[in-house]
Structures are given as structure tokens and as C-alpha cells.
């Protein structure tokens, strides 16, 4: 479908143009605007519109690095279709260097599709309004969505791509995006599990709108590790190659592992946290995942892998309160060949 102009806030790009700008999602009490920065790279030839966003959780930086490297190399004259890049989707959380905007503490990736002002629910409705604007633009323009995440400051994630079950065509295209990313772990997230762990997340609402999408995760620890960024960048380049937007073949670096279930690891006690596994490590049921000690080193709790599979993510921060996310053991998908 031909579109005349793509306009998102102050960024407006005609065919063959690059536009930098921002769209407003709120106003602080000094009347300064809260704006989400956006870059539109519009290819000379018409084609798919891909929305690539990062930092819906404000302390996740690997995708920001990947997007920077992608934008550095994109040339409208050699691009088919359009890339809409949103490196910092949650600016107040980014400023605070925290997962959520401190103004309301809401997890933005549990708040889709957001709410307009007159329907806002929480006392401080910032995140609901932010997500509403993001999702409104996505549904207006995007043919595919890439949502970049990482383990934030506390955790490290294996290179993985997650897609969501949904209507047949949506699921097929989303799965293809996940595989083409070249990430090592390919995660089919399934309905009941998503309802438990990710209600209100972007992929649930992309499924409802039948916009194919994928979540990419890599690294974390609050770092811009160049190895991690490079892997994320490759996944973004692969995505554009897969969609025929740039030239080149999809590169897959190593055999992919398919999972369809994650086992969240959470301690019942608080203490000093000693991880015993690495991201992407293969494990067996009963393997030691981590040990929680008191501050003197006396053991309080052992976290044990409840199933065999692969380490999707693991807490690397040296301490945990009771109940906190300390990682995730993925179980192999019986519907895929290994």
C-alpha cells in the first residue's frame, strides 16, 4: 500500500528521506514536554514498514546500541520500505535509569494497549498514556514490530528471539522473524504462559491486531558490551534482510535451540546471590542454578533447575530480595526438531 508521508510527531519523511524528530507523550510539572525520540528512514522503493523499539524498560541499553549501529549504515537509496526506529521508548524510565518511569512505577510492557487520558486508571497515569501513544503509531504504520530488550542492570540474557502464538498467518510470520533474527534461542511463548507472565505485553496486542512481531533479547548487566550489541545489531540487520528491505542473506551463527516454556527462578529468601549457571548454558533437571547465602556466607537456599533445557537468563547482580526474578530455565519445544 502506498502511503504519502509517514508522520510521527515532528518526524515526517517522504519517500527516500530520513527524518529525525520526537512525539509528545506527556508534560512534567515544570511544563516541559516528555517526548519519545523517533527516526524514520524511508526507502526509495516502497515496501514493509518495520517498527524497531528499545528501552520500553528504561534500563535496557543493548538494543539502543543495535539501533544506533543500524541507523549508521542505513541508506534510503538502498532501502526497500521503511524503518521506524525508537531507541528510547520510555524516556522517563531512561532518565531515571530504571525499568519503569518513577512517576508511576508501572511496567510499560505490562500496560499495553495503554489508555487515553479520559480512560486512564492509575493515579499517575503517565505509563498508560505513553503506551497508548506508542501503540497507536505502531498500529497506524507498522507491518512488523521488533521489541528489543535485555537483562537490565541485574540480569544477563542469552541471545533469544521470542514470538507469540496467535492467528495462523500472524504466528507463521512472527516465527519466521524470530528464526531469521539469528538469535540462538527461539522461544514460542504460548497463551496460558503469556497470560501468567506477560499480560498486557506488546506481543499480546500485536496478535490481536495481527501485526507480526518479535521480542529480541541479548545481554544486559546495564552494559553496552560490544559483543552483545554486535549480536543485537546482526539480529536487526537479519530482520531487514529477511523482509527483503536490504540486500544480503540472513546470517545464522550457531545452531538454534527452540523452547516453548520458561521456568522463572525466584528465591523464597533474601540474601547474597551466587549464580551457578551462564546464559545459553544447557542444563539438566536438578542442576544447581544458584545459591542464596546470608551476608556471612551461610547457605539459606538453593535454587535448582526444575526442568532440563537451556538457561534463558540469569541474575548476575550479587544480591536478591525474596520473590525477585533471578533468571529463567527454558524447556525444549517438543513441536520443533532439535
Amino acid at each position, binding site marked *: 500500500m502506498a502511503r504519502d508521508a509517514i508522520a510521527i510527531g515532528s518526524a515526517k519523511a517522504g519517500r527516500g528521506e530520513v527524518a529525525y524528530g520526537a512525539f509528545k507523550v506527556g508534560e512534567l510539572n*515544570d511544563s516541559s514536554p516528555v517526548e519519545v525520540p523517533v527516526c524514520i528512514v524511508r526507502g526509495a522503493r516502497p515496501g514493509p514498514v518495520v517498527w524497531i523499539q528499545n528501552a520500553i524498560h528504561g534500563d535496557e541499553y543493548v538494543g539502543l546500541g543495535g539501533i544506533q549501529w543500524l541507523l549508521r549504515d542505513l541508506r534510503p537509496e538502498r532501502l526497500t520500505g521503511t524503518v521506524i526506529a525508537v531507541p528510547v521508548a520510555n524516556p522517563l524510565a531512561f532518565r531515571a535509569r530504571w525499568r519503569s518511569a518513577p512517576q508511576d512505577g508501572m511496567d510499560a510492557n505490562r500496560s499495553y494497549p495503554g489508555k487515553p487520558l479520559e480512560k486512564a486508571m492509575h493515579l*499517575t497515569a*503517565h505509563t498508560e498514556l505513553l503506551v497508548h501513544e506508542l501503540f497507536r503509531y505502531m498500529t497506524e504504520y507498522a507491518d512488523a514490530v521488533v521489541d528489543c530488550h535485555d537483562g537490565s542492570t541485574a540480569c544477563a540474557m542469552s541471545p533469544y528471539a521470542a514470538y507469540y502464538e496467535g492467528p495462523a498467518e500472524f504466528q507463521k510470520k512472527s516465527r519466521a522473524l524470530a528464526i531469521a533474527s539469528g538469535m540462538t534461542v527461539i522461544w514460542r511463548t504460548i497463551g496460558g504462559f503469556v497470560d501468567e507472565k506477560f*499480560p498486557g505485553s506488546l506481543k499480546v496486542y500485536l496478535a490481536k491486531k495481527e501485526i507480526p512481531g518479535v521480542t529480541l533479547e541479548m545481554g544486559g548487566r546495564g552494559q553496552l558490551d560490544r559483543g552483545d550489541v554486535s549480536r543485537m545489531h546482526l539480529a536487526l540487520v537479519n530482520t531487514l534482510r529477511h523482509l527483503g528491505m536490504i540486500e544480503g542473506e540472513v546470517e545464522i551463527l550457531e545452531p538454534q535451540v527452540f523452547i516453548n516454556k520458561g521456568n522463572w527462578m525466584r528465591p523464597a529468601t533474601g540474601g547474597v*546471590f551466587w549464580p551457578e549457571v551462564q546464559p545459553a548454558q544447557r542444563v539438566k533437571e536438578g542442576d544447581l542454578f544458584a545459591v542464596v547465602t546470608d551476608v556471612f556466607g551461610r547457605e539459606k537456599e538453593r535454587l535448582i533447575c526444575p526442568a532440563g533445557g537451556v538457561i534463558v537468563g540469569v541474575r548476575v547482580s550479587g544480591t536478591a530480595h525474596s*520473590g525477585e526474578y533471578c533468571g529463567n530455565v527454558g524447556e525444549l519445544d517438543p513441536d520443533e526438531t532439535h
Partner: protein
Amino acid sequence: MRDVIEVGTARAEPGQRGDGVLRVAELNDGTPVDIPVAVVNGTQDGSVLWVQNGVHGMEYVGAGALHRVLRLTSPRLLRGVLIAVPMVNILAYRAGARSAPIDGLDMNRIYPGRPLHQVMHVFGHSEVVINKVFNEIRRLATHVIDLHAGGWYTTMSPYAQYLDGDGPYQEASAALARASGMTLVWRSSAAFMDEKAPSSLKIWAARASIPGVTLEVGGQGRLVPVEVRRMAQAVVNIMRHLQMVDGEPEIPVRQYVVRQGHWLRPKTGGLLFARVKPLQRVRAGQITHVITDLLGRPRERLRAPVDGLVVGVRTLGTVNSGEYCGNIGEVEGDGR
């Protein structure tokens, strides 16, 4: 033969009061997070009334009111059981904040909570706390009262809110609301609650068929004696209504039934000048707040969308776009 009642370490034989704590979490230095609980076990059978405050950690009126209620409640004269929880959200209380800083979740939007192995959010604190608290409510309570106030930023009219619908459950909840003697009795539809307070205690108490009511008065981070007494009287009124103690509920001459609440939220951020007070009668179009920038240039005027009474009003002198600035209640009849 009446039972011993235990909540966490609080244990009361019939005719006794037992104080203790319910352990809900542990911090990374190994210190526990304990919710204080008082159990007053009567000498005769009756309702088991769970009264909690401080699901939002900067709401203090109900905690003060529970001191008074406990002082006035003699275990020897009580029929049934009173379980008093003056502060549910301990980490938020320590921080002087609505939510626990550890995860920032609004505890009154995440009922019934989740056990450890089913926790959803990365920081699994508030979900686990609410699960442990709500499990106790389900295990013991025949009636539940959730005390709130306007936090730091707002002040609330004396009101009792319940979930509307057909059937004995709603009738029982409506009776609790009227018996509280609060000036406003707010009948909230399920659709309204789904929009403004999904997964709040009222909704889950209804699913568990435990009649319940939310009581609010005051706020601004204060313990104003007249507001504390009003809240305590409302709890005592409900205990009288349930025949847990002798006496008739004291109900004011006029109670107004609120049938719909309208939230006030600005599109801009700035200094906030409040022009209305709790319980004030307003007309549609009347200015409730004026927002200016820091140099005093006008940015926005908030107006009452309907004729009604002011239920709550933000009194803090500053606001970000989108934030709650109060609500206007449409009342039954002409409200006079």
C-alpha cells in the same frame, strides 16, 4: 466451643486479644518484612471482620482509626472476631510512598496476588504480599473493610464505596456502606471498577463472596483528629450493624448516593491551584483547578464535567500531565 484465631504470629483465644505479625517477604540483608496484626477474639459467635489500612503506604487516617477501634473493642463483649491490620504495605510505608519502591506496583490493582512460583513482575514483592494477605482474608473473613485516604496529594470526602450489582452479596455490601455513616455512599458499577480499579480488593472480595466496603476520608499525609474519629466511627458503626457490638450505627441526617465518578486529569503539567473542596457542590463547567507554568502563565483549566459533589480533590501545588486531580460524583436525585 469457639476456636482460637491465628493470623501469622497473632494468636487469640476466645475472649482475648493477640498481637503479632504476618511475615510476607525478606530483604537482601536477611531482614524480614512483617505486617503487624491484631486479632480480637470475642466470647460469642458472630461475624469475622477483617479491617485493613495502608495497602497504599502513605495513607494514615485508617491506621489512626484502628488504634481507636481496638481501644474501644473489649474481647469479652465482642461477638465474633475483629482482625485489624493497620498497615499492609510496609515497604511503601517505610518509603512514605503509595507503592513499595522495590517494584512500584499499586497493591490495590493486583489482587488476588500470586504465589512465588507464579509471580509475573520482575520484582515479585507486591504480588506475593497481596497473595499472602488475601489468602488470610479468604481463609477467615466473613466481611472485609479496606481503609484508604487521599495520600499526600489529595484529600477525600468521607465516603463508603461498594461494588454494585444484583443479589444478596451486593445488598450486604450496600448495607455495610450505608451503616458506615459516611456522608457519601458510592455505588460503583462493575464496568466502572474494571476501568478505574481492576483487580482491586472489592472485585476479588466479591468473587470470594465476602461482603466488603472501602472507606475513605481525609489525606494530605495527615492524621487530623476529626477525620480519624470519623473513620473510627465508621468501623464501629459497621461492627454495630453486624451486631458484633451493642448499639445502633450513628448515621448523619443526609447521606448522598454517588452513582458515577468522573476523574479530573490535566493534559498539561505545571503549578496546580485547587478551586474546590471535598463535599463541595459543583455545576457542570465550573472550574476545579487552574494550571499555570512556573512564570504564572495559564496552561489549562480543569472543569467539572457534570453537576455533582466533589468526592476527592488534589491539593498538592503541582501536577504532571495525566495525573489524578480529583473526582466529581454524580449523585442520586438532586443531591439536596
